[in-house]
């Protein structure tokens, strides 16, 4: 019997519709992690850990969410994952002590 489910990364190698899963189902959870989504970012948020108070506001507001909570932190508890941050600037806007600055992305 024809296999019904494939993973996203497998699909990339399968151009024919006959081999694609019916209903365009993605059979493996978390497969989106394999795709980096930050390439469209124009401004990059930078946290100044000298100012940051670990209040968690940026983590709460990030819509991605691209801000991770570190338990083994040295410099800060809240760290931005630039593989997924889209540069929307919400964290910078919401940070109560303005510890985040948006810096133009260098190509």
């Amino acid at each position, binding site marked *: 019997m024809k296999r019904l489910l494939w993973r996203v990364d497998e699909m990339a190698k399968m151009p024919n*519709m006959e081999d*694609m899963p*019916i*209903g*365009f189902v993605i059979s493996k959870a978390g497969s989106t992690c394999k795709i980096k989504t930050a390439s469209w970012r124009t401004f990059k948020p930078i946290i100044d850990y000298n100012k940051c108070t670990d209040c968690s506001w940026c983590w709460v507001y990030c819509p991605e969410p691209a801000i991770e909570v570190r338990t083994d932190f040295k410099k800060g508890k809240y760290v931005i994952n630039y593989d997924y941050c889209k540069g929307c600037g919400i964290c910078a806007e919401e940070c109560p002590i303005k510890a985040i600055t948006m810096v133009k992305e260098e190509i």
Partner: protein
Amino acid sequence: MKVIQKNRLALSGNEAVAYAVKQAKVDVTAVYPITPSTAVSEKISEYVAKGELDGELLLVESEHSALSACIGAAAVGARVFTVTCSQGLLLMHEILYIASALRVPVVMAVANRSISAPLNIWCDHSDAMDQRDTNWIMIFVLSVQEVYDRMIQAFRIAEDFRVRLPIMVNYDGFTLSHTYSPVDVLSDEEVSPFLPRREPPFKLDPKNPITLGAVGNPDYYMEAKVQASKALTDSLLVIDEVDKEFEKKFGRSYGIYRKFMMEDAEIAIVGMGSAMGTAKEAVRRLRKEGKKVGALILNIYRPFAYEMLAKELKDLKALGVMERALSPGGVSSPLMSDLLSTLYLNSINIPTMNFIAGLGGRDITIDDFRKMFSELELLEKGKSKRPYLTYVGLRSEEREMVL
């Protein structure tokens, strides 16, 4: 056709649909009421209240939500049903595409009704024709018995692994939805093995997560859409197979289309829905007068059986297509467009005429069909002065386009 008389009930079309839903042991019914289909949900709610149907009845806030709820329930592997028509079906429109693209086996009954404005609650096929490109299987029926039988078949077809597509069973509003007819129903013991429960090829399950409804980027979208479209075309085989098995087990079948006195017919009318019952009577009478006429009743509109139809129609001398829908500003009505493509692709060059009739519930009488047939007779002889698109019973100063 042998008739097995086991259990004959007097049912309206709406009640026949509800009865089939009960026997199919539908898990989730999500509905929003709309005339003339409301009685279906009322009857189902009665079944659920009495404990005759062990299923969930969701009364949602709109048709858009009704179909959305059905998709969600079907995605976890439930057998689902909804019913609507007219504006309700139009409100579902965008969700119809999603149901077929996600390949969930939703069964929906549509008590065909016209579209506003002007506000009109009576029958025509405008609501269904508005959905023809949504990748659903579209069945049209002629009688209350047929709507019951097709509803039972619908669950089997939709859930077949080779199909996995939603199905719309169209039955004419009021003409069928509210008319009581004797219906030979199957026993529950007969229905259960005909509609076996099977583990779906994929389902939403927290223990085994999958993604349904992912983004299809330009590098996948086209394949996904064509794949679903191909599945619809291929479903013709399964629809036929299920119908044949139904006949073998229960003695009734309908086919992709059925022919009435078509054997040596020179002039024929093709159409769908209950009005074709009237067409049959007109043919019967005209045959007594020695006219070589026939009728072809199309039961399955999508997928469109163009190869089979070309074979049936190729020897005619004139062809008429009666349709209860308009395609404003277009070449012809939807069914006629499909048939014209069919004829052209098969190099069949016969004179044709498109009859628009019965919009907004206007009666289509035996006399109307007589007029259509005599016009086709003139057309065959090259003497018809009417344009190719002709309106039956329209009041207009432009007399030549009115029949």
